[in-house]
Structures are given as C-alpha cells and as structure tokens.
C-alpha cells in the first residue's frame, strides 16, 4: 500500500511540474511579443522596455523559469498587471464562489443521475430506459452556454421565479448549478446504468434474489456498493469537465469566480493572472484525480495488493 502511495504521488508530482512548465511556456511560446500585445501596437518603446523589466521578460528564459518555479514554491504567483495586487489574494477572493458552484453542480448531477441510471438499469428495454437514455443523450449534447440562457429565459424572464444572474443568496445558485450539473448528470447516468447492469448479472445478485430479498434491498445492499467503484473513478475524471464547465457557466450567469476571472483577465491582457488561474484549475484537477486513484485503492483491496 505504501509503495502504491509513493509511486502514485511521485507521478502526480511529475505531472504538476510538467503542468507548471507548460503554463510558463504558454506565454513565451505564443508568437509575437506579449508586451506589445499588452500595451497595444502604438505603444512607446520605453514603456515596453519598462514593462518587460517589470515582468522580468528581459532576462534569459532559464533564469525566468527558475524564478517562476521558486515563486510557485513560496505560493508567490506575482502581481496582477491590471489591479497591481498580489495574484494569490485575488484567487483566494474568487475561489469560494467557484467551489460553491462546482459543489452545487456535482450535487445536482448526482441527484439527477442516480435515479435515472438506476431506473434505466432496472427497467432495461422499457420506455423508462429509453426516456432516461434519451435525456442523457440530450444532456451530453447541449452546450452549457446555451442551456444557461434557456434556463434564464424560462425561469427568470418568463416565469420570474429565479434571479437572472449574480451571486446573491441561495436562489441565485439554482440555475448555474442546474446548467453545470446537467452535462455531468447525463454522462454519470449512462455510466451508472452500464455498471449496474453488469453487476445485476452477477451470481450473488441472483442468490440474493433467490433467498427472497426484495429488489430494493438487493440493489442498495448488494449491487450498488459494487457498482460504486467505477462510478467514483468517473466522478473524479468528470470533475475536470465540471471545472471547465464552471468557466463558461460563470460567464453566462456573471458568477464572480475563477472562471470569470480568467476571461476578464484575457480581455484585459492581464497575462500573469491568466497563467495563475489556468495553473490553479489544472493543479486542482491533478489533485482530485490523484485522490480518486488513492480512494479507489483504499476501497478496493485487490488494487493495493497488486502494488
């Protein structure tokens, strides 16, 4: 178990390093002069030189990379070009909103997917199944930047039940969470259906039924715990989609989180902030995936034995 833990953490560390370097390279590999892009084409040569110095872009690449990585270790992400404030502070301000949205989206996804997936598996081949999977197909295909406006149109503008945008009170969370959770619910319900069908074909399920247990007891006590493992892995993998989905959802609903910060910063040409946001989201994703793997190993003794 310890060896598994060590190798898994080590490989995660390598990925973290790679991601940090790639994010650093982003700003340097992009064709053209980032300083000129930031200041505009008509800018003075002296101003460009000053900004270049302020950003440390006049030094050799290798020195810049080492300084950048050193800064990361000290959690020093640099200064925003737009607001002149430490980027770490800005991120900390925005993070709660994004976490709140992601958590709510996840909750919506599970609440929709669990009943849909179970019903589709138990009533396989019936209209229930077709309906649930039709919904899943629709949910996978509907982009959240259209789903969001549709929900606003119906529930805010026509019915007047919920606020259009912003982050004020629990009511304002409903539509963003629905928008974000639907795509994930769709994928999740397909997965739950597939794994549950597989498990329901096992001998021990037939035995449990044969000894007279009710279907609900068989499903909840015997089938679901075993179907849960692949579902947990999928949840971890889907968290990435949830995080990027949050970027677009935040724009649709003017939700003041990290996603909105990325896009604002891109439009303001505040590249250090863009860098920091991309890094934060990716590292969160890596951390979640690593945790998922470890959870999986912890829940399934066969994996840890295999090393």
């Amino acid at each position, binding site marked *: 178990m310890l060896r598994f833990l060590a190798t898994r953490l080590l*490989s995660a560390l*390598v*990925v*973290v390093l*790679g*991601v940090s370097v*790639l*994010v650093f390279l*982003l*700003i340097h590999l*992009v*064709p053209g002069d*980032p300083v000129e*892009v930031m200041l505009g084409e008509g800018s003075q040569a002296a101003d460009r030189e000053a900004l270049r110095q302020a950003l440390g872009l006049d030094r050799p690449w290798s020195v810049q990379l080492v300084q950048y990585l050193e800064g990361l270790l000290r959690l020093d992400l640099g200064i925003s070009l737009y607001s002149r404030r430490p980027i770490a502070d800005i991120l900390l301000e925005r993070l709660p909103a994004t976490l709140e949205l992601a958590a709510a989206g996840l909750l919506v996804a599970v609440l929709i997917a669990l009943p849909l997936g179970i019903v589709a598996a138990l009533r396989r081949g019936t209209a229930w199944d077709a309906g649930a999977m039709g919904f899943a*197909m*629709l949910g*996978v*295909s*509907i*982009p959240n*930047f*259209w789903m969001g*406006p*549709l929900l*606003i*149109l119906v529930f805010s*503008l026509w019915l007047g039940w919920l606020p259009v945008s912003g982050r004020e009170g629990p009511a304002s969370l409903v539509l963003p969470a629905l928008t974000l959770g639907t*795509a994930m619910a769709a*994928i999740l319900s*397909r*997965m739950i259906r597939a794994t549950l069908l597989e498990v329901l074909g096992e001998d021990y399920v037939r035995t449990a039924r044969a000894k007279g247990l009710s279907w609900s007891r068989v499903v909840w006590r015997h089938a679901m715990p075993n179907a849960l493992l692949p579902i947990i892995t*999928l949840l971890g*993998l889907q*968290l*990435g*989609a949830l*995080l*990027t*989905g949050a*970027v*677009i959802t935040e*724009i*649709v609903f003017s939700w003041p989180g990290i996603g909105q910060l*990325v*896009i604002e910063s*891109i*439009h303001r040409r505040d*590249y250090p902030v*863009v860098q920091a946001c*991309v890094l934060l*989201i*990716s590292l969160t*994703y*890596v951390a979640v995936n690593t945790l998922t793997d470890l959870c999986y190993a912890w829940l399934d003794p066969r994996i840890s034995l295999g090393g």
Partner: protein
Amino acid sequence: MRVYFAVVVLGGWILLALAGWWLPLEPHRIDLQRILMPPDAQAWLGYDDLGRPLVDRLLVGARHSLLVAVLVVAISLLAGTFIGAVSAYWGGWLDHLTVRVIDVFLAFPGILLAIALAGLMGPGLDNVVIALSLVGWVGFARLARAQVLALKHREHVVAAVSLGAGRLRIVRRHLLPLMAAPLIVEATFAVAGVVIAEAGLSFLGLGIQPPEPSWGSMIREGTRYMLVTAHMVLVPGLALLLVVLAVNMLGDWLRDRLDVRGGGERR
C-alpha cells in the same frame, strides 16, 4: 432509426454549409428598420439586433463550424495517431517521454488549455484551429498508443518483423488497418467536441470575431436581447444542439456497429 436522424441532420449541415458559397447570402446586410424583427418572407428566421437576417448568418456560421471541425479533427487525428503509434512501437525513452507529455496535456481539463491558448494568441479562425488542434491530438495519441501496445505482439506483426519489414511499414500496413475502427469512433465524437468548443470559444469572445458570424457568438449576442425577444438565442442554439446531437448519435451507432468498447465519454 436514430442513425437516420443523424445522417439527415449531418447531411443538411454539410450541404447548407457548402451551399452558402453559391447562395446569395447577405450576413452583413444591416437594416435598421428591421432590428430584432420576427421572421418574415425575406428572412424566415427573423432579424438580429442590427437588422441582419439570421438565416444568412446561421448558414455562414454553419460553414465556419464545419470548417473548424474538419480541420481540427483531421490535424489531431493525423498528428495524434502518428505520435501515439510511433512512440508505442518504438518504445524505450521515446515512449516514456510521450507518456509524460500526454499526462501533462491531460492535466488541463477540457478546453481550458484551448481557452488560454486562444486568449493568448488572440482571436480569429486560424488561431481557433491551432488552439483546438494543440489540445485535440492528445486523445488520439493516447488511443493509438494503447492500440499499438495491444497489437504489437500479435502473430501477424511478429511474422512481418521476421520477414524483415521495416518499422514504419509495419505500423502503416499491419497496425493502422486494425486500429481504424476505434480511431473512426474517436474522430466522430471529436467532431462533436470541436463543434461545441469552437462555439464556446466564440461565445467567450475568443473565437471567430464579429462581424463574421459563429453560432457561439450569435448565442452570445442573443443573450443580450433576451428581455426583448427570444429568437436570437433560440435559433443558433437549436442548430448547434441538432448538429452535436446528430454527431453523438452517429458516434454511438458507429461504436456499436464497429464493436468498439469505451471512448466518447470525455469532453
């Protein structure tokens, strides 16, 4: 049954996108008398906030989304398959390096990397293609690598090796034909992903730039006038949903027909 829906919608998409070159479309004709007007005989999907006919803009947008999808999927498929297949067949340090690079790229969830790239490179159709291709090759590389690893010890490959066939010849003649089915399924789902991604980038203002229409930017423009009228946001969104739905259905059908396991569950 569902595959007919898919074929009809996709055929319509491609046909209308291509027909746009010959039709007398006027996506930039501003008519201030008709701002936000509902459909009439001249523009049977209504007018936008500048009085431009939505149907013309929709067709030009279809051309853009088709162009981006074909280019990005073709580039990603070729580059990804080449990198994945070669590195798996060569093995050794090259393969180790490829795996690391793939891992790092996969650590960026969804189109986040494309958003950052498009944002840094500046908007425009060519930059959208570059950004999405830089992200898109990874999925194909991972799939091709896994396929080659599974196939390279098959008997017909060993036989070819012992007959003295070169590495590239083996990859091309003895491995690629067997990998075609999963790659085709992956490419189909990739089309859906790229269509959504292009529209998403344009929605965020990082893709195709106004006044050129894209379904994504049309949705964005539509959201600003939702209080007044809904057709501006409904029309491009419905077109987008239909196309993506059709591609996904085709992908599901192909996966069942070609008997490929997994794939298509990531976005």
